[in-house]
């Protein structure tokens, strides 16, 4: 089994025209330690230095960090640095169980722990993962769009593969085409969005059919075209979907790139949708306006020239 080691830097910079007296923030920028993803080192720095910080493991098990900067500033920089080993491999289709999506949905309703291959606490998690959430709503448009993928006795693994193909084939990736408040119905109507939209759409399609699905936040390594140097700091945050496949567990699937998640991905955390795990959210106090953040992500093999 191959292991890939990464150095990861995620830096967000806000520059304000007028002073901000206080900045309060919460980050979900610490990668999760998982069987196929070991965190060797991780740190978070905030500049100016916060008067107060606090770490907290949230409802979903993600490590989040609170900070409060309480002296006036015109620039806020939040930098997360980690070194990790990723050994994730994509299971071949033959290795995935053939359980049908409808059987899974029925088992969630009935609380059939045997079929679901989980325990009582796990059932609570799965019941939560079939409910609508802040950004995932149950509307006719999603039901209609998803229906062709949910043929009656289809194995759930094939439903997932089909949804991945269809998102990639039927929707266009267009940066800036959506905002945090774009709904799935709007996304389908305009036919374009970004990775969070695609993740939300696929989650909605699964949940509306009673299949547990959650939202994953993380990164994907970009590789330069052959012969071109890698552009530093130009990697990206990313979002995808986890589906509960009884007998396998949570299966991570990336509708933006129509593939299952492998060792080119780094997982930060997961939740019901984007609302539960934004990398950074905050509140500022100022007489002036806000600022558009500048974001740099650098995901490179460990030992590369450091990104500063």
């Amino acid at each position, binding site marked *: 089994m191959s292991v890939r080691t990464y150095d990861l830097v995620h830096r967000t910079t*806000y520059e304000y025209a007028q002073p901000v*007296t206080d900045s*309060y*923030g*919460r980050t979900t920028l610490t990668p999760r330690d998982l069987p196929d993803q070991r965190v060797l080192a991780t740190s978070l720095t905030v500049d100016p230095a916060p*008067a*107060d910080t*606090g770490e*907290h493991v*949230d*409802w979903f098990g993600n490590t989040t960090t*609170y900070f*409060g900067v*309480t002296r006036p500033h015109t620039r806020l920089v939040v930098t997360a640095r980690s070194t990790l080993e990723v050994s994730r491999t994509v299971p071949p289709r033959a290795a995935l169980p053939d359980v049908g999506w409808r059987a899974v949905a029925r088992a969630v309703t009935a609380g059939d722990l045997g079929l679901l291959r989980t325990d*009582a*606490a796990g*059932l*609570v998690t799965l*019941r*939560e993962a079939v*409910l*609508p959430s802040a950004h995932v709503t*149950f509307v006719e448009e999603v039901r209609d769009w998803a229906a062709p993928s949910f043929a009656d006795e289809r194995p759930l693994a094939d439903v997932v593969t089909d949804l991945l193909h269809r998102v990639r084939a039927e929707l266009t*990736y267009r*940066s800036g085409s*959506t*905002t*945090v408040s774009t709904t799935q119905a709007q996304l389908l109507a305009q036919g374009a969005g*970004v*990775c*969070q939209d695609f993740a939300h759409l696929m989650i909605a399609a699964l949940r509306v059919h009673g299949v547990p699905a959650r939202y994953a936040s993380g990164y994907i390594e*970009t*590789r*330069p*075209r052959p012969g071109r140097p890698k*552009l530093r700091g*130009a*990697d*990206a*945050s*990313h979002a995808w979907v986890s589906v509960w496949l009884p007998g396998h567990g949570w299966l991570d699937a990336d509708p933006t*790139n129509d593939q299952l998640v492998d060792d080119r991905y780094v997982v930060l955390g997961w939740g019901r949708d*984007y609302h*539960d795990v*934004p*990398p*950074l*959210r*905050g*509140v*500022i*106090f*100022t*007489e002036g*306006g*806000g*600022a*558009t*953040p500048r*974001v740099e992500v650098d995901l490179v093999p460990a030992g590369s020239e450091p990104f500063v």
Partner: protein
Amino acid sequence: MRQTARVTDLLSSPRLLGDGTTIAHRPDWAWLPPGAAPTDADLTRAGRQAEQLLAGHGVTYGADRADSDHHWRLDPLPVVVDEPEWARLDAALVQRAELLDAVLHDLYGARRLLDDRVLPPTAVLSHPGFLRPVDGLRLPGGRELVLTATDLVRDASGEWCVLADRTQAPSGAGYAMEDRRVVAQVLAPVYRQASIARLGPFFHALRKALVEVAPPTAGDAPRAVLLSPGPGSETAFDQAYLASMLGLPLVEGSDLVVRAGRLFLQGIDGLEPVDVVLRRVDAEWCDSLELRAGSRLGVPGFVHALRRGTVSVVNPLGASVLENPALLGYLPRLARAVLDQDLTLASAPTWWCGEERALRHVLGRLDRLVVKPTVHGPRTTTVLGWTLSVAEREELAARIAAEPWRWVGQEPVGPVLADDDGPRAAVMRTFAVAHAGTYTVMAGGLARVADDAVVTSSAGASAKDVWVLASQPAEPDAAVREDVAGAGGRAVGYGISPRAAENLYWMGRYAERAEDGVRVLRAVADRWDDYHRSPGSAGGRALEVLLTALTPAALADGAQAAQPADADAAHVVPRPPALRDLLLDQGTPGSVARAVRRLASSAATVRDQLSTDTFGPLARIERTLRDERTRVRARQQSGGGLDVGPVPPGSVTAGLRPTLDRVLESLLAISGIAAEGLTRDVGWHLLDAGRRLERAQRLVAMLQATLVVRRPGDVEDLLLESVLLAAESAITYRRRHQRGADVASVLDLLVHDRTNPRSLAFALDRLLADLEAVPAPRSAAQRDHLLHGVADLVAELDTVAVGNEVSEDGRRVRLADALGSMLWRLREASDEIERVHFVRPAPSRALDDLWGSTYGDPGEGGER
């Protein structure tokens, strides 16, 4: 007060009619000594008195506004419950509170109950009141549910039955106390003959409960605040009343800040730690960082401080998950699982549609059930199934089937009424507080009745007091004094935020502005009555000066009036002045009505700092102005038909004088309460400083407008007389000076005389003393420099010289210079006071979201 609501009694201990099966719903006074029962006439009179008392106390339901119909309605006929029945209810309510507390404990802890055999997980997970960010947090003292309220009805057999539990931030305890105060007064003869359980012990227990939950960091005397959404809240009265009864500062989210993991109140004298928050803000709104983004009602970092264990909040964030009506059906099962007891108090039979069998049951009986969403939203409210058309029922069924976990069906529960009684509903809210290891139930509650199928205060339900007949007589003075549950000593200035400070200061200013406005109008109206028919006379010319100088807004062309009056200009005022608008019309700049409205709004935000007596006169002024407006409108419509042209000159002041007098009387009452009814704390000094500054500014402006231009002797005599009247110094002047008025001695009295409370010198002395007593978080040097500058100008003013030194164009130039200089300094000083004392935090906003911004065009490898 509708008569029908009074004669039906749906909540008192049931009494059976002759055949022994039907319950009587007529008031029953059999428990009183013979002849003591109030007659219908007594009750009608009591109702009227109650209405007056409630208006006088400023008791409202709904946000503060001028022409509001949001007066709290009270039906004086109490709900009467026998002690044995109440004792059973009390025990049942304690059991229920203990059960809910245990459930809350589990839901944010071990979650052993989240099991299909006890409580289906989805019922909890789908409820927005289940706040994941506060999972695992614990309140010191062993309880999670500190304050709970229960809405109860009588069922057909006369038994109590729960409709809903209120666990978020229950309202109504303050209203219940106020209802008791009023009913005890208007039904005094009856009240005195009965042994009625007191409400006081509940409030004592609540005070102690707030101490019991204080974090270990709090020390011996925990500091608690009541967090309010602000005066725009529907139950603002209830909140302010409770705060002052418990002796807690009434604060808003913008008054608080989190620093170094602790919650602080941003007082006018710096940060003051807060240990306990009694909240009336819904949990989701309490922290714009961790909970609802964009909320201005809470404090970013509040949840962080809670996690640090440095502050406690009552009820804990997340407690509203217990309000989910889906739980009602599971409570009997939960009681056996958690308490190993049978649940004594029944709930209305309720089916949660998240379970398939329940869903089928509800969908099959939609026409007979009350259908409730598990949480109310803009498009989802309670529906009475039998009121729907077939089509509407089908639509509702489709909505339920799509998201069944969002709905419950509830059996309608209520007393059996004779057909001719019409729709009628009555609900009683009880209150319980965790204290000393158990729960203390208020021996009484808040009953509400409506001539409707449902009871809502916003739709005009009437409240009723709830009397629990005690076997032991209450303390003799209990009835009158029982509202003073606490109000222990509070450190000087503690709990006064810059927001409260600013409102107190502006209250003082608006009170003075209104009072001065009334006096000026009186002086001008007198001259109008005497001289408007003889424009060419000395009186007519004095009138013209007064109108343009003091009441320019009443003239048709305000711009022209703003210029100094030209002594040789035309003598006839083209249109009769709209003096009445300056009294009644809130839209007219500088009107009394506008100052009064702002006075009332400022007062509403600092209700906890004020004596309740303040609100009586305030309500009376607003009523007087409203009545007069109505009268004028009626007269215009009946007299002038559609053409409401200018009022004939003769009626410019018709009816004005009595209204002015009535308004002034109430304004004097307000200033009297401030002078005699408030302790000289920081709040009082701010109030007084506002009044003094306003008076100084208005006095100087009046002198500038009237005395700078020299007029012929006979005109000036009349002018000076009016100035003295408007400055409330005419009598003093006459006593001191036998002859008519002259400029120098008028200036002496109004500018120099330190013994005259209406003089500039007096106002400055007081203003400086007041400001001295108020903490100044920023340097006050500039403020003091300006004010001392005014004092110096006052001292230097040679009243004889400035009166006599007149330029060629007829102006008293030195007087003009001096007054102009004073006015400029006073206005600058006012800005400085704002800057020094009312430093409010900058507005907050959410950081721009990272959505999309990190996901540029697909990178070089084409993968994203």
